[in-house]
């Protein structure tokens, strides 16, 4: 697989790595700025900008990576469910197109009605 196809298929993970690298650079720059002066008043803007921004970027990178895993798992489950629905109702169209998903149950343990045509 060439690099373009790989990046296209794994764009979220590639973006996560790129953002994590940017976060590392930001934190390094912050460290450099903080270590270059003994005055707290000068150090604080580095903490606020580079330090907090680095943490911000790291959070986004981690979220992207976890999202990629979740999306993969969800896609596999969805494919499987569509196949199962087709087995269950071979003459019907895929259930997903019929079902009003918002009629699903809440978290209070009560039974919920699901209407299907």
């Amino acid at each position, binding site marked *: 697989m060439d690099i373009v196809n790989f990046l296209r298929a794994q764009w979220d993970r590639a973006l996560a790595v790129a953002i994590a690298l940017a976060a590392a650079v930001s934190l390094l720059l912050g460290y450099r700025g903080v270590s270059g002066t003994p*005055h*707290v*008043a*000068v150090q*604080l*803007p580095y*903490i*606020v*900008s580079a330090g*907090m*921004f680095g*943490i*911000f970027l790291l*959070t*986004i990178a*981690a*979220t992207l990576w*976890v*999202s990629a895993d*979740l*999306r993969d*798992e*969800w*896609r596999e*489950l*969805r494919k*499987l*469910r569509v196949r*199962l*629905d087709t*087995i*269950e109702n071979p003459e019907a169209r895929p259930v*997903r*197109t019929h*079902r009003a*998903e*918002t*009629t*699903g*149950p*809440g*978290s*209070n*343990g*009560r*039974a*919920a*009605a*699901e*209407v*299907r*045509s």
Partner: protein
Amino acid sequence: MRLRLVLADDYRGARPRRASSRTSDSPWLSVDVTRLAFALALALIANTIAWYGSSGTTEWSTQMGWLVLSIGAAALAAGSCARWVIAGLRSTRWERAEIVRVVNAAWPDKGGLNRAVAVDDQFEVLVAGPTMTRFHRPTCQLAAGKDVVGLTTTQIVAGHLAPCEMCAP
């Protein structure tokens, strides 16, 4: 029209989603994307303002205020990301619950078969011999010393095998 009841406990907090508002091929709704983008943009703007404010003064008490704003922005970003991940987890759990529901509806419990599948899930191989009408745990006394082979769930169903009453697989 057919009315069907679905027990809420099957979903365990799974999130019913409206298909029409779902982003293509993704467990998140478009409203989730909007919320996350808005919160991240807000956090980024707040952080930039905090940086601008803190770098314009050398007074400690003023800088502390900007630092608190910056920490708040980071907390907002982290919270939004956590909410995003939780939304994805709930959608995934919903899909899994639906699969379980469809499988249970299509292949209902037949005399311990579901229990056998549960045992199988724990990586314990169930066994039976070619002339046997029951399947056993490998440690079962009734299978000891006999010519038995490991079974898959499909083989158990296809062979109309019943679970052994002694080892109760």
